[in-house]
């Protein structure tokens, strides 16, 4: 009985902690924005190209979500949770003392690991659209580019790294950590490509791309590590609380369900 009460208290405090964390972090937001490319920075042809790249991924994500939620009712609350997490994380400016600047993680590795990269792209697209519409965070014309970097690149890199490491029997938390970290760095690499290609005019692509990547490094290097920690924390927490769900989603093999996370 005592343990049951403790568990209920723990659940409530978990919910409360999530709420408080989100509020405290967002209270610090101010005007800070980060990787999202602002309105008007990309020329029309490049903005259109990134829309063309990202739309098929979003459409496929929507189809996957429909298929998955038809066969499994627990997918809907999971996707709801992940969408809220991606939305909050991707508009959460984190001060990086080594650089004296702020930036935000992408958060797309978490849904990519749990429900697959295509649904992760869909979740990122919804979060980015709301941010572009109401939070002056990224532009509407540059939405395609932002989905391509944060959604497509972030999710597929996180998913690939996680699957690769798990194939080599790397521990669940460690695999999630590297997936989160490399996913974050991949997002900023993609942003650098988009930016360099879009703004270069007559200038050479490679030197400009290198300059932008180097400028991102002091902020994104530590932030990538933080994103790795967040991803590992989320995945291992779910593995402790709902290992059955992770097995059902194919994140963990049934024979590894009891392994240390």
């Amino acid at each position, binding site marked *: 009985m005592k343990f049951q009460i403790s568990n209920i208290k723990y659940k409530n405090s978990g919910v409360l902690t999530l709420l408080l964390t*989100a509020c405290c972090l967002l209270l*610090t937001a*101010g005007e800070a924005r980060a990787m999202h490319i602002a309105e008007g920075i990309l020329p029309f042809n490049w903005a259109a190209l990134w829309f063309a790249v990202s739309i098929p991924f979003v459409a496929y994500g929507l189809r996957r979500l429909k298929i998955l939620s038809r066969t499994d009712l627990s997918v809907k609350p*999971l996707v709801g949770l992940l969408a809220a997490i991606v939305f909050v994380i991707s508009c959460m400016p984190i001060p990086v003392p080594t650089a004296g600047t702020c930036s935000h993680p992408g958060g797309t590795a978490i849904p990519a690991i749990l429900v697959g990269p295509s649904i992760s792209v869909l979740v990122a697209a919804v979060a980015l659209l*709301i941010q572009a519409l109401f939070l*002056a965070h990224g532009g509407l014309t540059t939405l395609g580019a932002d989905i391509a970097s944060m959604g497509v690149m972030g999710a597929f890199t996180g998913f690939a790294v996680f699957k690769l490491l798990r194939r080599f029997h790397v521990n669940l938390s460690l695999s999630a950590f590297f997936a989160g970290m490399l996913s974050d760095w991949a997002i900023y690499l993609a942003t650098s490509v988009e930016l360099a290609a879009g703004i270069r005019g007559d200038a050479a692509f490679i030197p400009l791309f290198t300059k932008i990547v180097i400028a991102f490094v002091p902020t994104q290097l530590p932030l990538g590590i933080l994103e790795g920690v967040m991803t590992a924390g989320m995945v291992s927490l779910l593995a402790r609380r709902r290992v*059955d769900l992770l097995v059902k989603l194919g994140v963990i093999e049934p024979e590894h369900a009891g392994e240390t996370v």
Partner: protein
Amino acid sequence: MKIINFKLQITNSGLILIFLLTTCHVSLVTAPLAAKWGGVDESVVEKYAEEHGRAAREPLINTDQGDLLLFLFLLAGTVGGFIAGYYWKQLTEKKKGTKVVQDNSKAV
């Protein structure tokens, strides 16, 4: 076994609380230095874009006016936090007799 799980849960919530307190502390300490802590969108993206003649335009719906943006960020955080907490509770409620069945149909 239950005691071990309970201890793990206590450790987890402790870690989350430490993270929360550290974040709050960093926020309070850095608040007066807000101007210094600009986003990389300004220090990298907009800087290089302007150098190449591509300045950022005003957003279609410009909420970056006075404290309006602060209010919207707070609202977004509260709603986002509530939704995350609500679904987390739904997912982690004990479901007795849940079968562990792998879905091999999961594709990319």
